[in-house]
């Protein structure tokens, strides 16, 4: 018997305003445990919006998203925040590392909001960074190279041992060589923790690196396609 999927989406619809066009209109999607999927699509097809819906940062108008067996939008307020911190890791195009914090602290911040005992935080973060090749763990992000900053961002996303990692255009600001290295790093890190990876990218060269590639345009149920943005939360 195969393990239950980490992510299942059914009949998901989201739009800016109650009478506006659908920005996201996705009949179904699922990711198995440890599966790595690339989600492609042109600009404005709602890729980032979909990731924010999956992370519970936005609410859909219709449909259901289950993560690790839980309907994330049924969770309210702090419960959803705790759930996201525990089960979902996010990697951003510009890394979004916290200014004023060292590399180690950037990873430890993620652990602050988890159930992992505080005494283990420093050790766990240090080991994770070391495994990703970060030696100067006390250095602030601005003193690290772009590649090292990306490794810190990956370590932060994986710090709490999430079942699902969402990567939003993680290579968009990198040259092809560094982009390949970065995606290798993300994939191998997720593989090492058996975390499913849903990576959004408009870079066609990424397709060959994933087990499965989905085009959001193909997945749409139909209806008008409008430039995407962010929904009111």
């Amino acid at each position, binding site marked *: 018997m195969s393990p239950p999927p980490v992510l299942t989406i059914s009949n998901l619809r989201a739009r800016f305003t109650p009478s506006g066009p659908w920005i996201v209109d996705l009949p179904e999607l699922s990711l198995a445990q440890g599966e790595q999927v690339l989600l492609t699509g042109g600009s404005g097809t709602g890729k980032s919006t979909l990731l924010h819906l999956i992370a519970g*940062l936005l609410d859909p108008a219709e449909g259901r998203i289950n993560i690790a067996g839980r309907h994330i939008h049924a969770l309210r307020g702090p419960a959803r925040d705790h759930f996201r911190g525990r089960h979902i890791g996010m990697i951003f195009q510009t890394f*979004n590392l916290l200014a*004023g914090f060292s590399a180690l602290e950037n990873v430890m911040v993620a652990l602050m909001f988890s159930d992992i005992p505080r005494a283990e935080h420093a050790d766990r973060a240090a080991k994770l960074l070391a495994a990703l090749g970060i030696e100067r763990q006390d250095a602030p992000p601005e003193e690290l190279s772009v590649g090292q900053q990306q490794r810190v961002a990956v370590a932060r996303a994986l710090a709490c041992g999430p079942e699902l990692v969402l990567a939003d255009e993680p290579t968009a600001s990198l040259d092809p060589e560094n982009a390949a290295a970065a995606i290798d790093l993300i994939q191998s890190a997720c593989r090492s923790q058996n975390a499913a990876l849903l990576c959004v990218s408009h870079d066609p060269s990424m397709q060959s690196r994933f087990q499965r590639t989905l085009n959001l345009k193909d997945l749409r149920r139909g209806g008008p396609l409008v430039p995407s943005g962010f929904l009111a939360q």
Partner: protein
Amino acid sequence: MTDLTIILRSLRVRLFSTATTVLSVAVAVALLLVLLLMRDASHQAFARGGGNMHLLVSRDSSPLVSVLNGIFYANPPPRPITWAEYERITGNLPLEYAIPTQQGDSYLGQPVLATLPNFFTEFQPGEGEQWQLASGRFLRGPTDPAPEDAGNPPIPEAHAFEVVVGAAAAKATGLRLGDTLHLTHGTSQSRQLGDPNAMQPHVHREFTYRVVGVLKPTGTPHDRALITHLDGGWIIHAHDRRKIDDPSIKTTMMADLLERDKLITGIYVRVLTRRGSDVSASLPPVFAKLRSDPSITVAQPLQQMNTLFRIIGNVDWILRAMAVVVLVSSGVGIMLALYNSMTERRRQIAVLRVLGCTQGRIFSLVVTEAAMIGLAGAIAGILLALVGVQVVAQILRQEIGLSIPPALAPELVLSVGIGAVLLAALAGVIPALLAYRTPVANNLKPIG
């Protein structure tokens, strides 16, 4: 890693803004503390000024002026009382003491009070408090031997030229036990107020005084006075009078004094009371009887101080209101600093939310950050106030003779400190609400 770490990092990232906000709180706290301390301490010091006397008799223009001149050494009382009048005024009254005082001379700007030795034995600087010596001894009478001259032939009328120096006066003039000095006719205030000798103060060089005692601080205006024997005061002024008639005379003795040389400027009066009590049924009739004499002014020091407090009450209230306004404006400063920082911190807040931080925790982080600015400002303000109090206390002691303890009361410090922290936390509520409502998805977009 704790919430405190996040707050400290956030404060460090905006170091300049944090430092200026902390400074504004510190200045407000220090100002409030100094003002409150000065107010309380000066009220106490003013109230203590009269010591254990019940009444002050003089020829000043009003009871309040009498107290300001006779106790606080504001100016030498302009109209004297003769010794005969003193005996008439104080005769046949149920008095515990009636100590004559004479003002008008000074030494290096410090006032001189000529009186009798019972000033130190009967008049108390505070109710139930005795005078205490830091060194030496008190004044003595004409027939009392000087302990330091034991075995030597007594020097005639040496008692008249002995000085006991108040604690603040000793500090201001540098006088020590055994030092000698010459008094100056008039005071710096009287010279400033149009005394014809203002430009050339007259120094009584013919008579050398000797310091025989230095007092411990009493927290009263007398700390800045030099206290001498009344006989000396009479002799040096009689000598001036005699020199006008006969410039060749070298000295003046008690025997040379005329009745008109025996002048005083005030009388410290205490009516008879039961032992250990400051209240006397005799006080109202004595007061009434003395007031019936139109040639003198009779003041109840404590009552006059209350009158003074009422007069300056509005100023007092304005000062306190100003201090509170400064504190509130520093609270507004905290709010603005945090509010403005929210623009640049939206991304940080969004990232924290993605990592699992709840909206409530974001709110509490910002409020705690504001409270920590308040706490840092309060601590810096208290330290600033400790320095400020020393400076103000010194100025008050030197300029108006008001001795106040240059220390902050723990309960005052605690209440102002807690108030500053609470006010700062309150100032953090609006920025915290802004942070609470920060849209996450919008603020995760790549910059540019």
